């Protein structure tokens, strides 16, 4: 039952040590988001965040998910700061009795973290000529409608 907003990297293995150990846990799902580079031009991503609001916004999202799917455990870590290609941006983990619950809760967390947690991504290119804020996608906003 952990939520963390941090600049440091995290280790999936250590984070999952002891995760979802209750006897009524039948399924755990993890999601890890990484800095992706499709073009070979990206140097790093700068993630800005709203300290304080991040924590309360994520706590609310997590509470909603835990109630809706009777999670036996959950974990959310989101980083901020300068993140190079291939590094981890964030992770969520969910534990539940059945697979559908664990999957749905993880997707719900991701959909809401994407559009309702105060983080903003800026992409900086290798030659330093481009530094652009990533625009929110309509599809990300639409994704919330399914819940």
């Amino acid at each position, binding site marked *: 039952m952990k939520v963390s907003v941090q600049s440091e990297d995290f280790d999936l293995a250590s984070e999952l040590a002891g995760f979802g150990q209750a006897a009524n846990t039948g399924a755990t799902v993890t999601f890890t*988001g990484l800095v992706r580079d499709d073009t070979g031009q990206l140097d790093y991503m700068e993630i*800005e965040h*709203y300290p*304080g*609001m991040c924590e*309360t*916004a994520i706590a609310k999202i997590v509470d909603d998910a835990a109630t809706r799917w009777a999670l036996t455990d959950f974990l959310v870590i*989101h980083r901020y700061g300068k993140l190079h290609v291939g590094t981890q*941006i*964030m992770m969520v983990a969910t534990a539940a009795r059945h697979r559908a619950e664990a999957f749905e809760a993880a997707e719900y967390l*991701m959909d809401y*973290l*994407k*559009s*309702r*947690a*105060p*983080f*903003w*991504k*800026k992409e900086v290119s290798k030659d330093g000529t481009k530094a652009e*804020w*990533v*625009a*929110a996608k309509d599809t990300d*906003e639409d994704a919330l409608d399914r819940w």
Partner: protein
Amino acid sequence: MINVVYFAWVRERIGVPQEDIETSAETVMELVAELKSREERYDLAFSDLESLRVALDQELSDFDAPLAGVREVAFFPPMTGG
């Protein structure tokens, strides 16, 4: 006196991450109008409210919301977490 904070390109356009504003605005919209009338950088930052979000005391809100009792107003573009 109200603390106004800015993030992402809103912060870049306005040029400061936060500032204390002396205002008698009763709603977010009135505060926005007041800021826009002050200087061009505000006018630029607030030119398209559709592409802006507002939080009052760290909770998402909307532009019609009253400011009574609010200590911190934040303006930022749609979030891109995850």
